[in-house]
């Protein structure tokens, strides 16, 4: 398993960031901190997909002219890039709606801590 750390550090970084995001969402009681954890989870998954699309000696997926057509091994895999574009934009929309909910909760209960809100709701 030592070669993972040496030759594939992207997967180790993905695991660290993903678990850090989950830990913050579960343990922290501040609502905005939980949203920071959610953002970390989303970007770590995007890192994982981009790592799967890398090709050794490959360049960016913009084709040079068709007169000198290069084989598909010379370009990075474009399909995960497309999926991750959608993921980033959907992630920021989710963040906007979550922040609107946080502001509405603050307007009602005047605090951002989860246990205080639950206490005031009773």
């Amino acid at each position: 398993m030592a070669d993972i750390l040496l030759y594939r550090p992207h997967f180790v970084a993905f695991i660290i960031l993903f678990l850090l995001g989950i830990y913050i969402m579960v343990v922290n009681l501040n609502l905005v901190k939980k949203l920071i954890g959610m953002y970390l989870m989303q970007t770590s998954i995007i890192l994982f997909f981009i790592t799967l699309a890398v090709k050794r000696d490959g360049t960016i997926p913009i084709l040079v002219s068709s007169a000198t057509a290069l084989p598909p091994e010379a370009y990075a895999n474009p399909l995960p890039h497309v999926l991750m574009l959608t993921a980033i934009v959907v992630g920021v929309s989710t963040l906007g709606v979550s922040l609107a909910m946080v502001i509405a909760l603050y307007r009602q209960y005047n605090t951002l801590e989860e246990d205080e809100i639950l206490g005031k709701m009773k």
Partner: protein
Amino acid sequence: MTLFDDYLLLLLAVVMALGAVFVRDLFSGVLTLAAYSFFLALLWAGLGAVDVAFTEAVVGAGLSTVFFLVALFLTSHEEKVRKQLQVKIMALGSLGCLGFLLLFGSVDLPVVGDPESLPSKHVSSHYLRKSLEETDTPNVVTAVLADYRGFDTLGEATVIFTAGLACWMLLRRRDDSAP
């Protein structure tokens, strides 16, 4: 982009993420999150994903930071420190097991950079070969996003519009009129 550059940027990104979550003042946390986004965008540009890096730098590091800062201006920005030893120990234990399992599973993943790995076969090589003659577009990511997978992009644009509607509806007051 050599492996050393990957190492450096990954290390910086992880350090920024740790800084964003273990800081008490939420303003500092959010701005450190923006720095984390920028380092990730640099890393992806180096790995060949230029469209994704552009979008992350503009949308992720730009727009989401603006939303966070506006929300923090209108609410409070200090976090209360609690002692929750039991919850933290349980979370660390279970997430540690999950991390170990994920590390075990990542041994079977393809080597980074392998041009013969499974995600690079089938449809993806067809897109790379035929995109210029079928759609007149050298940028394969735009061609796939807008033409070959245009239905998904229609759904994504609808999701953004629905999020805008939801934000407007959530923060309505009793004396508000319709736009």
